């Protein structure tokens, strides 16, 4: 909250849209603002009435550079919008930078998401330090209901819960990298970086970055599911394959390759396989190992076929480890298997476990 917990003194709040962006149809702007307000009214007793003239509690406008409040915008990118906490006069007013390109989808800046964030300020919410919260100060694109538990608790601390007890499914809070019980969903390399998927977030590890960077999956790849089961990179083809359920996606950097998503059975897996737990590409032999429950398969990247003689038992071929994996990666002759909160360093050449570490040691914990 803002200092002194600023809030509106009654629950019936008025708003007025003073002007419109040319980037979108007028009706799309109206819909984005109304939906953004509904996001907050779904979890509180607040109601919002639209005014077409006169002074409303929340005056909404688009402007560029200096736009009348001595708090100028800065041209494209950088600052996207700002809003004032509840109060008389400028209090509650919400301004969008007209120099941005406003959209209805994941391209450029989604007006609905930015409006929902700014209207959060107009209702008394300050910034959250949780990357998964709507009130996090940095823009990231998400699909679905954007409020996290942190946002809901914050707004309800000011106005109380919705009397109709509407069922809303909050966005998950970002996983904490140093949680001792942290497990991973999937790991892959991507053009020299390591990408670690967990829930609807991923960490990006760059050899020259001392700290991992956490982002939502949807903000980078809006077209892939927010829950990844397995992933691997085929560096020769410069693609990353993402598995979720019985489907897979091929990414070339930020782009989705044509023809995807495809069914995982196209790889030659039997229809009984409904999910891949972990996948890892072993550069030295050009094979990708796909782990499903207690078994694994070997896929030849050159021929695009599944190797004969598989599936084989994980327990038989990788002695000394658990018989199921969450994620796997390969580096300089060593396989790294992740299961729950443990990480096994396995020598592929000497076929034995060399070290057992905490899963999150890869995140500098």
């Amino acid at each position, binding site marked *: 909250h803002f200092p002194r917990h600023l809030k509106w003194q009654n629950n019936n709040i008025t708003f007025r849209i003073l002007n419109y962006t040319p980037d979108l149809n007028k009706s799309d702007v109206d819909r984005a603002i109304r939906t953004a307000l509904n996001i907050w009214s779904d979890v509180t007793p607040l109601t919002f009435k639209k005014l077409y003239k006169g002074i409303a509690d929340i005056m909404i406008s688009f402007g560029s550079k200096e736009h009348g409040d001595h708090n100028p915008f800065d041209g494209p990118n950088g600052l996207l919008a*700002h809003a004032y906490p509840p109060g008389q006069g400028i209090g509650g007013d919400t301004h969008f930078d007209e120099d941005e390109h406003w959209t209805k989808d994941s391209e450029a800046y989604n007006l609905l998401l930015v409006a929902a964030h700014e209207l959060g300020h107009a209702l008394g919410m300050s910034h959250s*330090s949780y990357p998964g919260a709507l009130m996090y100060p940095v*823009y990231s694109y998400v699909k679905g209901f954007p409020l996290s538990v942190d946002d809901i608790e914050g707004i309800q601390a000011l106005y109380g819960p919705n009397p109709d007890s509407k069922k809303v499914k909050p966005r998950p809070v970002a996983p904490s990298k140093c949680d001792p019980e942290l497990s991973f969903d999937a790991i892959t390399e991507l053009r020299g970086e390591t990408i670690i998927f967990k829930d609807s977030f991923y960490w990006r590890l760059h050899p020259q970055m001392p700290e991992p960077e956490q982002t939502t999956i949807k903000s980078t790849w809006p077209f892939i599911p927010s829950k990844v089961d397995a992933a691997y990179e085929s560096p020769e083809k410069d693609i990353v394959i993402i598995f979720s359920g019985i489907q897979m996606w091929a990414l070339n950097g930020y782009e989705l390759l044509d023809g995807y998503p495809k069914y995982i059975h196209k790889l030659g897996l039997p229809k009984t396989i409904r999910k891949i737990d972990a996948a890892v590409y072993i550069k030295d032999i050009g094979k990708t190992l796909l782990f499903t429950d207690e078994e694994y398969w070997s896929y030849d990247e050159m021929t695009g076929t599944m190797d004969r003689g598989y599936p084989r038992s994980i327990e038989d071929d990788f002695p000394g480890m658990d018989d199921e994996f969450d994620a796997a990666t390969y580096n300089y002759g060593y396989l790294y298997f992740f299961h729950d909160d443990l990480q096994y360093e396995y020598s592929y050449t000497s076929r034995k476990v060399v070290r057992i570490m905490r899963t999150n040691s890869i995140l500098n914990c």
Partner: protein
Amino acid sequence: LPLLSADKDNWLLAEKYLRRFYGLPAGLQGAQRSSGAFQAKIKEMQKFFNLKVTGNLDDNTLELMKQARCGVPDIGEYN
């Protein structure tokens, strides 16, 4: 030696960012040296964003400063 122009730009960006969002007082900074106030504000920002708190303008901190964001200050008195 004179700083590379990219370094200078980064310092200016950081100073502007900390002034706007963390209330760094204007006019206290040395040319390219990080003053106590500057370091304290960087630490405040790094803590807020769960970055490694170093007080230095490292790559992670700088990258976050360059991202598109809301214009409302993160913490402190609203102005």
